[in-house]
């Protein structure tokens, strides 16, 4: 790491005083300083004489500059940093406070007027990052997170991992005091680190620790550009506290670097033609939409492709009631996987018995094509890349960027005969969809009046209330009856399966939805909420409207099942499976928890007949701007 610059380059900032001068100043300040008076002039720039402190008692007619020299600057480096960040266009910063970025925080709020970006107060850095994660999935652009470079980042780590696995760009700024001579004793040392990002570098795409304001400008813009280039991922900029707090050199011409986002890579034209040829020739192609569907354009393209081929589409935000929604890889002779995170898991099964056996779910001779940006960028340590799957054709490109040329090629290759064949295929697919819908209704009828309440009851009751509104499911499952058509109506899960994502994600997504007047709905797992329930306060404090319907099954049920499996396998006592896995005795009162943080809340609700009326009351509150929670006690799964 290079030492701080002392040059007078116009693009860089020189320190105002030397380290020795600053030490002298601090010693005098600790000995007792005169009270600050507003309007004191800025510190003189570059290599000033050792700062003299006027001692206490009445300054009377003393010149304010002389009195407060060395204590005031109206143009700290953080102001320039704010200018850089504003040029990028952030709407919000999510943060739990930390002294290592106090300079930036004050500059954002005062110099930046706490607007674009606006400061969002969080109670845990994991909440800050998860909020930013889900915000992106609604808004299509990153939100900033600010945290301590040590303890804050440690808190945030799991949420960063989730966003990395989910291929979501979160823009993280960490505070750190690199110069050891500038650290106050105690916590400031525990909160300082040589290489802040090293702890999470395996699941962050790029990071830097700029050492001058000019460097900062370029790195901050570069970080955003890299974050937003497919595959999109989280990035980190470390903002040294000295760089934040030292004055900008008067006359310094610090330049704000210009952001230009690269056009995403589209598939090779020859390969695209080959894919089109295979699709048109296939008898039963199935498209797996994967991570597509994060914007309306990708959904529209998927629909266009599906309708051109009259083939089913599974995932990718494909409209849930479209006649071509669905598809089964077991019957496919060709599978087109678009940005699918786990191809192996999509076409194979594995039994979780003592001897694990695997089985292909594919028909003999079935072919697999992938189009995915992750082929352009894969790291090795964390194994989120899943098991290797043999493929017939792989295109390393952004699937959304490739779809227009693929669709054009498919249409060009489709003869009249094939079109007729496609039409027949489409009719059969639509008929099987109807049969599936009937089965879903019959299953819902079985569970209709159960107590604890069934998920299908909640889904149908909710749908009745929201179907004529502009709604967005920001967390959790919604049932098959819901008519998903828009990209913001369904934003998926955590990516990395790190539990604790759901509650803060729902608040972050609701924050993005707020300006559009959308009704944000979360199906909130109880265990998930308990990781960092303080995010409920964040929602109330920032007036973020959100409806949370608890999926309160009073356990980490997946883990109970795992323990049952182990007890069965070991031929031992099954009744102990709940130990370590249930959230009972006492039962948490989520309504009281939410009320304590400023929410409207009711519950616990165990009678399914009470759900509809309770939802109506809660939605009325949300539409007035108050977040609302219903503690509904649910079936286990």
């Amino acid at each position: 790491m290079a030492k701080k610059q002392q040059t007078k380059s116009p693009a860089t900032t020189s320190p105002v005083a030397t380290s020795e001068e600053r030490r002298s100043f601090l010693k005098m300040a600790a000995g007792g300083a005169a009270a600050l008076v507003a309007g004191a002039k800025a510190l003189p720039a570059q290599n000033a004489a050792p700062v003299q402190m006027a001692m206490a008692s009445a300054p009377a007619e003393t010149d304010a500059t002389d009195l407060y020299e060395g204590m005031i600057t109206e143009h700290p480096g953080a102001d320039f940093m704010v200018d850089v960040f504003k040029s990028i266009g952030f709407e919000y910063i999510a943060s739990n406070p930390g002294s290592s970025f106090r300079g930036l925080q004050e500059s954002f709020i005062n110099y930046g007027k706490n607007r674009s970006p606006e400061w969002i107060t969080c109670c845990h850095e994991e909440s800050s990052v998860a909020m930013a994660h889900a915000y992106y999935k609604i808004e299509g652009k990153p939100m900033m997170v600010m945290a301590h470079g040590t303890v804050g980042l440690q808190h945030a780590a799991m949420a960063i991992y989730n966003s990395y696995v989910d291929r979501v760009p979160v823009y993280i700024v960490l505070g750190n005091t690199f110069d050891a001579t500038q650290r106050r004793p105690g916590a400031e040392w525990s909160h300082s680190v040589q290489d802040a990002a090293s702890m999470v570098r395996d699941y962050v795409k790029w990071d830097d620790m700029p050492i001058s304001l000019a460097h900062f400008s370029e790195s901050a813009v570069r970080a955003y550009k890299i974050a937003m280039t497919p595959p999109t991922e989280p990035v980190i900029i470390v903002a040294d506290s000295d760089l934040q707090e030292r004055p900008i050199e008067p006359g310094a011409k610090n330049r704000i670097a210009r952001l230009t986002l690269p056009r995403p890579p589209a598939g090779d034209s020859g390969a695209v033609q080959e894919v089109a040829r295979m699709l048109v020739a296939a008898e039963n192609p199935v498209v797996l939409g994967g991570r597509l569907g994060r914007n309306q354009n990708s959904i529209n393209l998927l629909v266009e492709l599906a309708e051109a081929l009259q083939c089913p589409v599974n995932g990718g935000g494909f409209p849930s009631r479209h006649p071509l929604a669905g598809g089964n890889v077991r019957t496919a002779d060709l599978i087109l996987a678009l940005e699918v995170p786990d191809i192996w898991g999509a076409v194979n099964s594995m039994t979780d018995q003592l001897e694990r056996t695997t089985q292909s779910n594919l028909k003999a001779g079935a072919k697999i094509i992938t189009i995915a940006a992750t082929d352009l960028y894969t790291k090795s340590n964390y194994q989120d890349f899943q098991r290797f799957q043999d493929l017939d054709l792989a295109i390393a490109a952004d699937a959304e960027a490739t779809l227009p040329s693929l669709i054009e090629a498919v249409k060009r290759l489709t003869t009249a005969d094939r079109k007729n064949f496609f039409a027949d295929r489409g009719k059969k697919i639509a008929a099987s969809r109807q049969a599936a819908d009937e089965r879903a209704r019959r299953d819902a009828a079985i569970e209709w009046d159960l107590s604890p309440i069934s998920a299908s009851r909640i889904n149908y009751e909710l749908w009745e209330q929201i179907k004529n509104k502009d709604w967005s499911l920001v967390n959790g499952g919604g049932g098959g009856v819901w008519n998903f058509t828009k990209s913001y109506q369904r934003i998926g899960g955590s990516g990395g399966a790190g539990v604790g994502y759901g509650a803060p994600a729902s608040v972050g997504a609701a924050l993005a939805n707020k300006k559009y007047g959308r009704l944000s709905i979360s199906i909130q797992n109880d265990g998930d909420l308990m990781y960092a329930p303080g995010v409920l306060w964040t929602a109330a404090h920032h007036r973020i409207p959100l409806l949370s319907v608890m999926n309160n099954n009073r356990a980490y049920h997946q883990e109970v099942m795992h323990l049952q499996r182990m007890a069965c396998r070991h031929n031992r006592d099954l009744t102990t499976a709940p130990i370590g896995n249930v959230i009972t005795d006492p039962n948490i009162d989520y309504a009281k928890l939410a009320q304590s943080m400023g929410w409207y809340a009711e519950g616990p609700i165990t009678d399914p007949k009470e759900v509809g009326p309770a939802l109506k009351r809660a939605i009325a509150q949300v539409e007035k701007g108050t977040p609302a929670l219903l503690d509904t006690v649910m079936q286990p799964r």
Partner: protein
Amino acid sequence: MRISSRVGLAGLFMMAVLIAIAPYARAQAPAPASGTSAPAGNAANGKKLYNDIGCWQCHGYSGQGGAGAKLAPDPISLAGFTRYIRKPTRAMPPYTAKLVSDAQLADIYAFLLTIPKPPDPKSIPLLNQTD
């Protein structure tokens, strides 16, 4: 045949009646589930076992399914039920007789038989809503 004086004609008559109605008496008892000749289990004990062992974790409190398959109403035969629990072919772990005996499985099965049939989906307005 020489009738004992102690049995008497009345006794003979009673015996004749009992012999005559015996087939009807058997018909009134609950028939064992098809495919098994095992005695019917105890549904109350079966419900307790279903909860204690934790069947509901995967199959729901009323056997309606969830992570695991739907078990009720209309469960498969007791023989098939027992066979699958001992040696499952998919995700379910095996439950040996040490963990749950055949008699206990019969009790659980009896509980599943008590799960009532669901209402017709057409009778539930929310299941038939049009948007």
